[in-house]
């Protein structure tokens, strides 16, 4: 199936792409997608996915699925284990950039 990975801000600096269509296996999870992308773009990609303030103990994912926050337990009760579907848009964005 085809999905699109979208890279905001610093992610586009790491990948040198704004987005990329990807052919992936059916029911690939977001966690597995991150592993696939980390093979292409390295550990820095994975680090950016989960970067949060150093003194914060809470988990945080800088990831959205079809413009919905993956951190929302109500929308995504299994979080990173959410299985992707044909046509999904997975966006990666860490706070930062110019003004």
């Amino acid at each position, binding site marked *: 199936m085809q999905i699109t990975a979208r890279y905001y801000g610093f992610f586009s600096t790491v990948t040198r792409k704004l987005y990329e269509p990807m052919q992936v296996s059916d029911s690939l999870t977001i966690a597995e997608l991150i592993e696939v992308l980390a093979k292409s773009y390295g550990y820095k990609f994975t680090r950016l996915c989960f970067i949060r*303030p150093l003194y*914060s103990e809470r988990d945080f994912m800088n990831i*959205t699925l079809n413009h919905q*926050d993956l951190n929302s337990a109500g929308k995504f009760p299994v979080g990173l284990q959410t299985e992707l579907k044909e046509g999904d*848009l997975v966006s990666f964005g860490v706070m930062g950039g110019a*003004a």
Partner: protein
Amino acid sequence: MWSRQIAIPGFGEEGQKKLKESRVAMLGLGGVGGPAALYLAAAGVGSLVLVDGDCVQLSNLNRQILFDSSDLGKSKADVAAKRLQQLNPDQEVEVVDRQIEERDLEAILAGCRFVLDCFDRNADRLAVNRVCMLLGIGAAHGFAQDLSGEVFTAIPGDGSCLACALDESFPETEVTAVMGVTTGMVAVSMASAAILSLTGIGDPMAGYRLIYDLAFPGMTRVLVGKNPRCAACGR
């Protein structure tokens, strides 16, 4: 001048009066700060503090629509003050056309009811956040890159602040690739946050990351939990 917005249900003469009585600081007058200042001047905000130590350069003009080619080499803050007063002659404008440091902020922001943080670096944004939390002033912080942008509004006593969301360990870019429509979109969102906060109409969604995507159009709200040990707002 403001009849079309006074006609908005729930805004009215009372909302206009609140804007007229408000003082707002614009920290940075680039691709985000310039357009945001235009919207606030047009909306009738009574007093603006314009802070920018840079001069207009050719590479600014793809997004900094407050300026044109006749302004190259001139002080951004001075040019902005002139343009904004042409738009709204009743408005008071204070110009700070020098580079500032954190120790300057308390004096500059004194008396302001809202701050638009249009600085480029996270370290500067965090300094603005610290002072705003200390003074009890709401602020909208803007971020823009390529075809995506983000706005985070922090209201003291209402959810998380910027330091709950990021710190100095987050990456910085030296030169940011960006389209003018992106900074314009962030500017509109920040100016809107100021108007909502100043007038009490609507909800500026304090404590949420508002992430805007122009390449695959959509907006995402991401709640940032308040950090009880946050050095800026946790006390």
